């Protein structure tokens, strides 16, 4: 990167048009001076005009020669940058400097036929405009970019209408799910207030129009209150409504919110209107906290007992909390950030959506897999062989464990992955093979032996399908 930076600095410091401009300024001055001389009072005028002009020719020529030099300098700067650039991206000729720009295209290059329109993988994304755009719309919603999402839905609708009128068929039926009404797609409106009371997540089999944007709008409203207005109430309200579902997932959200609220009350010195009768205002916070604790904490699961007693224990130290052993419980800022994350995760999980944006996870995985795929496709094109299995990638594209969402079964005999057609089968001894491997192994036999241990078993009914 250093070479690039240096080259860039050369461009900004001197390899640019500023010197040329200065040179042209000189030219203008020269011309202006000559003109002033000629137009000026005699004896400069008539007599010396031709002379003045003649004297001009040389400097004009020199000026343009100088300009040429200046531009050469700019060009040199650009060449330097190009060189640094090439060096940096050497060997990535999938998109190389000399590339025709088509290297990423359907045929060769990075795509491995995954890209667009090549016959290898029927699922080339170029033909999936509708699905790609549906994913983008959902992504914008889950990112809280409601304004952009609304513009996007409008633009897609307009374009698809005009294409349809041109006879181009495109599947944009997903748009129906994203528009509440043709004339009202503004998702920023705060017309969702009543929806906030609607705790019902499951029920009707059909998702009504605008369902997702209402849900995400709700999520961002709660997050906004949480992050920017230090207002826990909407989050607590939401968590209460969804208490059962959260409980079924053993989510800590409700308790963490209660804990945060407790701390908030404890450390607030402002008098609560309810506590107006309190004599000493410095105790108003702890007393409000105590009241809150008494009404809220008893309903929590026994596994929180220890934390609850610690919180209440802190009450005894008021007002000298900073020196108490409990002060760490009260450092609010990290808690607030992590509770926002916890809330987002809980919210998306209840919608059966991944908590981190699938497009993000996927492009990250893509960035990790691309070098391998590119290298492989280069080898392919060099050896002029082709890759024929369209079901499975031809090379391993290792990802970090955090991007592993399923168990993976590879048959130890055939080295094939378990699939819908060739599923994993467990033998009586507990060893697992792919169905086809077992069939091949047991063909024509009444009894056979596990390939991996001494256990023998009857072929008939000897293997049981397992779901890994």
């Amino acid at each position: 990167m250093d070479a690039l930076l240096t080259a860039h600095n050369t461009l900004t410091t001197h390899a640019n048009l500023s010197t040329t401009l200065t040179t042209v300024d000189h030219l203008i001055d020269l011309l202006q001076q000559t003109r002033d001389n000629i137009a000026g009072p005699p004896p400069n005028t008539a007599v010396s005009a031709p002379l003045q002009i003649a004297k001009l020719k040389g400097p004009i020529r020199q000026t343009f020669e100088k300009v040429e030099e200046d531009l050469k300098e700019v060009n040199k700067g650009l060449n330097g940058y190009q060189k640094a650039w090439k060096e940096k991206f050497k060997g990535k000729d999938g998109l190389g400097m000399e590339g025709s720009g088509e290297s990423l295209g359907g045929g060769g290059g990075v795509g491995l036929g995954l890209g667009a329109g090549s016959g290898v993988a029927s699922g080339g994304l170029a033909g999936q405009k509708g699905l790609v755009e549906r994913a983008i719309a959902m992504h914008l919603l889950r990112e809280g970019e409601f304004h952009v999402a609304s513009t996007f839905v409008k633009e897609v609708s307009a374009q698809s209408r005009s294409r349809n009128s041109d006879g181009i068929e495109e599947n944009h039926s997903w748009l129906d799910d994203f528009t509440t009404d043709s004339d009202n797609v503004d998702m920023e409106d705060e017309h969702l207030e009543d929806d906030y009371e609607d705790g019902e997540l499951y029920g009707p089999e059909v998702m009504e129009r605008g369902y997702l944007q209402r849900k995400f709008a709700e999520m961002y409203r709660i997050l906004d209150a949480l992050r920017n207005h230090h207002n826990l109430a909407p989050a607590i309200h939401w968590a209460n409504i969804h208490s059962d579902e959260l409980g079924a997932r053993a989510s800590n959200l409700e308790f963490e919110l209660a804990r945060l609220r407790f701390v908030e009350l404890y450390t607030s010195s402002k008098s609560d209107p309810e506590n107006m009768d309190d004599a000493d205002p410095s105790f108003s916070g702890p007393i409000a906290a105590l009241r809150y604790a008494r009404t809220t904490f008893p309903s929590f699961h026994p596994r929180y007992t220890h934390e609850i007693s610690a919180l209440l224990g802190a009450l005894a130290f008021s007002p000298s909390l900073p020196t108490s052993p409990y002060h760490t419980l009260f450092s609010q800022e990290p808690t607030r950030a992590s509770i926002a994350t916890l809330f987002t995760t809980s919210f998306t999980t209840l919608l059966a959506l991944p908590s981190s944006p699938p497009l993000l996870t996927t492009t990250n995985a893509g960035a990790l897999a691309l070098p391998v795929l590119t290298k492989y496709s280069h080898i392919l094109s060099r050896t002029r062989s082709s890759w024929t299995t369209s079901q499975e990638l031809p090379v391993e594209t290792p990802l970090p464990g955090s991007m592993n969402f399923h168990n993976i079964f590879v048959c130890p005999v055939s080295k094939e992955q378990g699939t819908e057609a060739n599923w994993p089968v467990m033998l009586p001894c507990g060893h697992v093979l792919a169905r086809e491997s077992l069939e091949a192994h047991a063909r024509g036999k009444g009894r056979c032996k596990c390939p991996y241990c001494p256990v023998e078993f009857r072929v008939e009914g000897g293997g049981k399908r397992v779901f890994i």
Partner: protein
Amino acid sequence: MAELISTKLDPDSHLLLDQPLLRLPHELLRKNLKSAQRHIEIANKGIATSIQTLTTHSSPADTLDALDATLLKAQTLKRKLKALHAEEATLHRQQKARIAHLQELHDIPTIADVKYDVWAQTRLDRLLVDYLLRQNYLASARQLAEAKGIVDLVDIPVFEECGRIEASLCGVHGEYGDVREALGWCAENKQALKKIGSILELELRLQQFIELARTDEMDKLMEAIAHARKHFVGGQDTLYGLRAGGVLAHAPDTMVEPYKTMYAPTRYPYLAALFLRTHHTLFALPAHPLLHTALSAGLSALKTPTCHSAHNPHRGMFSHQHSSDKTTSTMSRPSVPPLLTDTPVCPICSTELNELARGVPYAHHTKSYMEDDPVVLPNGRVFGRERLRGLNVKLGVPEGRVRDPTDGLGGAEWAWGEVRKVFIL
């Protein structure tokens, strides 16, 4: 489970998607320089001519006029150069922002670092804006770029111009397009187009010729011939001369190919596509959105046979029915709460990408990859023993009993004794 690979970040191999990022400002700077050269050439010639016309016999008035003309040319040059210099400064600023963005990646040690999350998020935003621009969703692109603060990392003006010219060529609703803007673009990039041997301008000129020939008016036909003489002479152009001659010999309602096709309005979408290809080649832009490249690689790398399996309990939540009949588009909501597992929802299984990933190949694996201590329930489902135990505690299942957490509280319950160890090699 162990990590499959080290999470150490190799920025150089990671930059595959980011090459065009640094490429385009550079190409535009080159174009800028060429424009400067052109203006200077014009000014140089013009000034020389003005001065040359003067002789020793010229009257003072003539001399002043000539000088004024010269001054005007110099000032025009200055104005043009100033605009180009401003453009240059903008491009330098973009370049700087982009280099800084890539530099950030070099300073992140592993992909497990939180800073990588932030960086990758910006990359995704870039890819999205690029996609929106390429599909001509310009307002969305601009809004997203501004919302995310990445205006200098994306190429809005380039695609705006490109989209405008493409649209003008296409024409609206089957009407004939207009080649003028595209020809203006060709003039601006004449040198570079020549260098790559582009036929775009010839094709556009041919279209102008076809439009003249389409009329039955004599003067238009004469104009057509003049047009052909002007534009289709010499070199590879003779081929176009021949084609032009052929067009002239056939009336617009001809059934003879290739002239029938040449008269057809479908030549406009063809020209639009040709323009787009030429444009992207000229500026070294990938022919397809990088989002497609990143997604198709990523979808495959993440995809497992399970993701589209009928036995996958995760799948089908909010599944989107696709059928030719548009009225049946519905997202079905699950009638039971989503399953209870403590694993994060797989992005490929999620409703957001499941359908999109259907056609791509799944990842290749050479060995099994299992949770620790796998056990199998009587219904055939395999779990890591500890995870199964933990989930059952959360479900409140009594000691010694076990449920399939996939089925939540609705499924069958067994004795732990029925849970068997399974050996996956």
